[in-house]
């Protein structure tokens, strides 16, 4: 199963490599990993999307929690949550295709950021499912380049990840 895990960790040099090293040393999957400081500059928030059986994911959360630099952890997939990722995609846009892509952009609530006579750069926000749906609809032949940020997420309602 796919899990989205968010952690708050001490914002110190090497913190990222502790997490990355843990995943490679223990053979866990990382689908994506994002990290940035929070409102509290001493803390970074990291969101990891991983895949594994329940047993493996339980180990992943325990091993992450065990890292001395990790202050708090939540498996967002266990609660109602919002997942967002930003994708910048350069698509072929010629002839009738130009109108079609623009229409798709509207449907997916994307933004066209750059235009040439043969291509658009589209910005799209959503969860993994939506971003992939957009790429599928545009069609592999029309996709020139994809830059995805990796997912970040937050729980719905009152629950919060705070130290």
């Amino acid at each position, binding site marked *: 199963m796919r899990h989205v895990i968010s952690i708050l*960790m*001490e914002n110190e*040099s*090497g913190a990222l*490599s*502790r997490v990355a*090293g843990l995943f490679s*040393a223990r053979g866990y999957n990382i689908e994506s990993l994002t990290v940035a400081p929070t409102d509290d500059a001493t803390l970074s928030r990291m969101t990891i999307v991983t895949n594994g059986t329940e*047993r493996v994911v*339980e*180990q992943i959360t*325990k*091993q992450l*929690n*065990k890292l*001395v*630099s*990790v*202050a708090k952890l939540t498996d967002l997939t266990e609660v109602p949550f919002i997942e967002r990722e930003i994708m910048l995609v350069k698509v072929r846009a010629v002839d009738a295709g130009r109108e079609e892509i623009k229409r798709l952009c509207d449907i997916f609530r994307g933004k066209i950021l750059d235009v040439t006579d043969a291509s658009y750069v589209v910005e799209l926000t959503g969860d993994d499912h939506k971003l992939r749906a957009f790429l599928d609809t545009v069609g592999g032949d029309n996709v020139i380049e994809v830059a995805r940020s990796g997912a970040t997420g937050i729980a719905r309602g009152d629950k919060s990840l705070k*130290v």
Partner: protein
Amino acid sequence: MQRLLSTGTYHRCSTPIGLLYFDEEFKVELSGGELLMEALKEEGVELVFGYPGGAVLHIYDALYQQNSVKHILVRHEQSATHAADGYARATGKPGVVLVTSGPGATNAVTGIATAFMDSIPMVVISGQVQSRFIGSDAFQEVDCVGITRPCVKHNFLVESLETMADTIKQAFHVATTGRPGPVVIDIPKDFTTPGVTVPFEYPKTVEMRSYSPPTQGHPGQIRKAVDLILSAKQPVIYSGGGVVLGNASEQLRAFTRELGYPITQTLMGLGAYPASDKQNIGMLGMHGTYEANIAMHECDVLIAIGARFDDRVTGEIDSFCPNAKIVHIDIDPASISKNVTVDVPIVGDVGMVLTAMLEQIKASEKRADPADIASWWSRINEWQSDKCLDYQLDDKLIKPQAVVEALWRETKGDAYITSDVGQHQMWAAQYYGFDNPNRWINSGGLGTMGFGLPAAIGVALAKPDATVACITGEASIQMCIQELSTCLQYSTPVKIICLNNRYMGMVRQWQEFAYEKRYSHSYMDALPDFIKLTEAYGHVGMNIENPNDVEGALAEAFAMKDRLVFMNFVTDQSENVYPMIEAGKGHHEMRLNPARELA
């Protein structure tokens, strides 16, 4: 300039009070090197095992000018870590290591990993190149924090002289609390420059928001566990190294005796419960006793205490304790349900949890049906009557098992025994019945050959009045043999019991069983004359070839209380370690000693 002057004062004064230079807040001004020494003193560190070099020259200079911390100069940084490790295992206090940057740090890695795998509290201080040179491939630069990251509990690169005291405090705190482990502090050389000082005050407490090890177990879980334990028909207590590390031997004994259940201990847990006690059914696992492993296979309730279900213990996981409900007490949540799914996990300090459980058991009316327990014991007694550890004596060849038994008699079962890795290690574990914790000191997790001698140095320095023996093999001992020199310098009268079978016996045994006796590179050719070698290092060497000489030689060697004696026992080359669970087999599929019936 100002700073230089203040240090000038520091170095010229000889009385302790004269060392003090006060700033406005009346704190002592110290350089990084001096600060480190003061911090070690505050932490109660008596011994530091180390080896100097460029990046730690300032620190060694500060070390030279104080006398509360004693430094032990080893002959290789690997030995510094093993010696500190042995010190820690014997005392329960953190072992402290000091090495230089680059090769000093990389040499220490084997010992750090050894300590990590066995959860030994250790603080390793490594020098680093000057902070402005980090990342420039400077002379003797390695990314020590990067290299050690996967084999430490935590590590720090000191960021400034100002934060150094806090970092040291945190390092000791992390190393010694929760599930213990090694912590590395990497100190750039410029933070230890003489004359560059900060006001020093060692933090009294430590607060780390991201680190709070558990203590008490969850009361609900404890209740559930007690319920299950008291309704068992065929229970087994399986205790591990966590009991030794958690200093919970007393609690384990009280708990086990109250219940009257059989107890088996892991390689790392030996001694926490007395081997000579009738409830003890021996070690379990790959070279555990027949009765312990069969009891594991047959039990209906397994009570795992400070043990981690290591693959050498469980055998083939699919056939592990097929009928058991499992209670697991451990301080590390990540140990729980890692290899084997358990029914009642309890996260907490083993001593505290055992105390809480024992109170509940005593308060409870409920007891397991005595008839069930009696018939369980009679089955176990039947398995015991198989005498799986019996072996056949020979009148020409020395049997290694017999040497260990004779050593037990000579030392009245009360020595500190370190060991290396191989057959001799297993024979030591099987035939030296440990009645007390912290006495059996071996590298169980990483299985590091070379551990035994330096670890024995650490033990001998920690326990100057104790008897210390290192049970080793002729291959293992050569991995850190240079420490014989350290032994001379610090007069550590270790007795080296070398079970010399002219083979990497454990490797040869596997090749005999699984590779049709193709003994690929397991033969120890061109062995040195260990007696001459020992003598060259200034110690006593003894050669023992006749089974009838074993007792007398041991008596003679142990009578030399203040000498290191290297006892080279020329043993039967063909002897194997039995019983054995081979790869892919379960607890109920043991290979037993074919010579057993003849014994």
